[in-house]
C-alpha cells in the first residue's frame, strides 16, 4: 500500500467513524438495540416454565390425596390452587386463571386401594402447545415421584420394568438462557453489519455524496474499505461486549477457545457487511434498503437460523432455504463453541460455508460497484 493510499484510507475511516458517532439513528442500532436485546434475552425471555398455576379438584380428601396435593405444592414447577368442584375449576381454566386441572374423583381412594389404576384426570390449556407439552412432562414427573413414595409407604415398592436414566450433554440443567444468549451474538452482528451498513451507505447513494466521492482520487477499493472498516470494528466491538456479558453477567459457559470464537465472528462480520453493502448498492435508497435488510437479513437470522426454532423440525423446503442464511452457520458455531467446546467437525464445515458465502458476496459487490461507477 502506497503512503498516499494509506493517508486517503485513514481519512475515509475517520470521516465514516465520525458519521456513526454523530448520527442518533446509528447509535440507536449499534448501541441501544444490542443492549436491549441482551437484557431481554438474558433476563426476560425464558422457555423454562415454573410456578405454573394449576387447579386441584379433590372430591373426597383422604391421606392418599393429601400426599398427592403435597407433592404438587412441593414441586417448583407448579403453583396449585384448590377448587371445590370440577365446574368451578373448568370455569377458571376457560378464563385463563389457571393453565391446567388435576381432578381426583370421589372413587379415587377406593380404586387406589383396590390396586386398579385409579384415574387422575388432567386437563391442560393447549393453546400454547409447547408449554402444554412441558406442563404434561412436569405433571408426569410429580405423578411418578408420588407413585413411588406411595407404593413404598404402602409396603410394596413399585416395580417399574424400565426406568430412564438420562444425561443431557452440554447443558445438563437444560437452562434455556444458555441456548438463547450465544445465538444472540449472531443477531446483534447482523443488526450492525447488515441493517446499519445498508441504511447508512444507501444514504450516501441517495444524497449523491457517493458520486462526489467517486470523483476524488480515492480508488473504489479505498472507498469500500474506508466504509467497511469502521463498521467491522463496531461489529466486533458489539461481539466482544455480548460475549463478555454472556459469560460474566449471564453465566453462560464458554467451553471453546476464544480465538476460534472471534475468528468465526470476524468471518461472519465480513459476510454480514457484504450483504449490507450489496443491499445498499442494489436499492440506493434508505427506505428500501432498510426494508430489504430487515426482511432478508434480520428476520431470517431470528427465525431461520436455529436461534430459537429447531431447524430439524422445519419442513424440508424451509430447511433448504435455511442453507442460504449465513446466520445459520454462525449460530451453529456459536452454540457449539459456547456449550460444547472446540469441535472441529462442527466448526470447520460451518466456517467453510461462511467463507464460501463471503466470497460470493465479495464478488457480487465488486461487480455491482464497479459497473455502476463507470
Amino acid at each position, binding site marked *: 500500500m502506497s503512503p498516499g493510499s494509506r493517508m486517503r484510507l485513514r481519512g475515509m475511516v475517520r470521516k465514516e467513524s465520525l458519521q456513526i458517532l454523530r448520527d442518533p*439513528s446509528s447509535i440507536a442500532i449499534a448501541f441501544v*438495540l444490542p443492549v*436491549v436485546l441482551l437484557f431481554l434475552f438474558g*433476563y*426476560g*425471555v425464558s*422457555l423454562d*416454565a415454573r410456578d*405454573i398455576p394449576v387447579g386441584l379438584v379433590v372430591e373426597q380428601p383422604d391421606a392418599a390425596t393429601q400426599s398427592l396435593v403435597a407433592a404438587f405444592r412441593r414441586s417448583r414447577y407448579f403453583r396449585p390452587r384448590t377448587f371445590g368442584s370440577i365446574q368451578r375449576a373448568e370455569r377458571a381454566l*376457560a378464563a*385463563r386463571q389457571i*393453565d391446567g386441572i388435576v381432578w381426583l374423583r370421589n372413587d*379415587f381412594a377406593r380404586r*387406589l386401594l383396590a*390396586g386398579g*389404576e*385409579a384415574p*387422575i*384426570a388432567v386437563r*391442560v390449556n*393447549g*393453546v400454547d*402447545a*409447547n408449554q*402444554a*407439552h412441558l406442563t404434561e*412432562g412436569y405433571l408426569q414427573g410429580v405423578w411418578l415421584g408420588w407413585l413411588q413414595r406411595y*407404593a413404598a409407604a404402602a409396603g410394596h415398592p*413399585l*416395580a*417399574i*420394568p*424400565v*426406568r*430412564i*436414566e*438420562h*444425561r*443431557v*450433554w452440554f*447443558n445438563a440443567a437444560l*437452562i434455556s438462557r*444458555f*441456548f438463547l444468549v450465544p445465538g444472540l451474538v449472531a443477531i446483534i452482528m447482523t443488526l450492525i453489519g447488515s441493517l446499519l451498513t445498508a441504511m447508512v451507505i444507501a444514504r450516501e447513494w441517495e444524497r449523491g455524496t457517493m458520486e462526489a466521492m467517486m470523483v476524488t482520487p480515492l480508488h473504489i477499493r479505498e472507498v469500500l474499505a474506508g466504509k467497511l472498516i469502521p463498521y467491522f470494528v463496531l461489529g466486533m466491538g458489539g461481539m466482544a461486549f455480548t460475549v463478555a456479558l454472556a459469560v460474566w453477567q449471564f453465566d453462560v459457559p464458554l467451553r471453546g477457545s476464544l480465538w476460534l470464537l472471534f475468528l468465526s465472528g470476524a468471518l461472519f462480520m465480513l459476510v454480514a457487511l457484504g450483504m449490507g453493502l450489496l443491499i445498499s448498492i442494489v436499492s440506493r*435508497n*434508505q*427506505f428500501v434498503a*432498510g426494508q430489504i435488510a430487515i*426482511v432478508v437479513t434480520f*428476520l431470517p437470522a431470528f427465525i*431461520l437460523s436455529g436461534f430459537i*426454532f*429447531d431447524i*430439524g*423440525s422445519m419442513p424440508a423446503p*424451509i430447511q433448504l432455504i435455511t442453507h442460504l442464511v449465513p446466520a445459520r452457520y454462525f449460530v451453529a458455531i456459536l452454540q457449539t463453541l459456547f456449550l*460444547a467446546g472446540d*469441535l472441529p*467437525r*462442527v466448526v470447520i464445515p460451518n466456517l467453510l460455508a461462511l467463507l464460501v458465502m463471503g466470497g460470493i458476496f465479495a464478488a457480487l459487490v465488486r461487480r455491482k460497484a464497479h459497473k455502476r461507477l463507470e
Partner: protein
Amino acid sequence: MWQILALALKEFLALVRDKRSRFVLIGPPIAQLLVFGYAATFDLNHVSVAVYNEDPGAASRALIGHIAGSPHFDLVARITHDAEIAPLVDQRRVLLVLHLGPHFSSDLAAGRGTRLQAILDGRNSNTATLALGYLRSILTDFNRQWAKDHGGPAPPAVLQMRAWYNASLVSRWFIIPGIVGLLTLVVTLVVTALSVAREREAGTFDQLLVTPLRPVQILVGKALPGMVIGTLEASLIILLAVAWFDIPLRGSLGALYAGLLLFLLSAVGIGLMISAIAVTQQQAVLGAFLFLVPAVILSGFATPIANMPPLVQQLTLIDPLRYFLVVVRGVFLEGDGFGLLLDQYWPMALIGLCALSLAGWLFRHRMY
C-alpha cells in the same frame, strides 16, 4: 368532518400511489406469513435417534420398535461401541442416543427392573426437554403393557391427560394467530410512523399546521388511513390463517374485530408518536423498529409472559401486542366472546388514547 375525510383520503392516496409503500404493504407480509408459518414451530417431528443395543433379547427389540415406530423419533443409526456416541452427538447427527445394556432382557424377565440410558444433546434446551418428554411417555406405555402381559401389578394410579382447545398440541395453532397480531402491528406502525415524518422532511407539515384544520383534526386524519390499512391487512392474514393453514376460528368475529380496532388504535397512536418525534423518514423507520423488537419479544409471541421475571412482566403491561395476542388466540382457539376478553380490551383502549394524546401534543410542540 369533511375536512378530516379529505385529509384522510389524501394520506391514503399518498400511500397507495407510492410504488415502494405499496410493495411494503403486500409483498413482505405475505412472504413472512408463509415462511414463518412453516418455519416457526416448536413441534418435534423426526428427532434423529441412534441406538446402542448390547442386549440380544426380544424385549429390547420390542422397546426399540416402539420408539422407532413413533412419529416423533427416527432411528438413523445403530452403533456398537461407546466411542461412537460422542461424534454422533457432537456433530448434531443425532439428538438422542439410547443405550440398552447387555442384561436388559434378562433383568426384565427376572422381574428385577432395568434401565434405559438416554444421552441428549442439550444445545437446544427446548428440543431436548421435549424429546425427553416424548421418550418418557412412550416408556410409560411400554411399562404398563409389559406389566399387563407379564402379570405384574398395575400402577395404583394413572394419569389421563387431555388438552383443551388444541387436542393434538400443534404449535402452529399457537404461532399463526400470533403472526396475525405481529404482522398487523408491523405494517400499521411503519405506515403511520412514516406519515408525519414524510411531511416533515418535505416541509409540508408546517403548511398543514397553518390550515384551518385543528391539530385534533389533523391527528384523526392521519390516524384513519392507518386504521383502514391495518384492518385490511389483518383481514387478509386472518383469511389466510383459516383458508391456507386450517387454523380453527371458533369464537365470535365481532369480538375479534372489536379487539383489532382497539389494538389498531394503540398501534396507530404509537406510530404517530414516533412520527411526531422523528425528523426524517429514516429516523421514523428506525424508531418503529426500536419499538417493534422489544414489543414482539415481550408480547408472549414465542415465549410465555408467565416465565419472565416479575419486573419484566410488569413491563409487558404497556405492550399492546400482549393484549391483542390473547384476543386473537382466545377467539381463534378458545372460542371466546366479548365477556372473557373485556380485561384485554380496556388496556389497549387506554394505551391508544394516551399515545394519541401524546402524539397530538407533540404535533404542536415539536417544531423544526
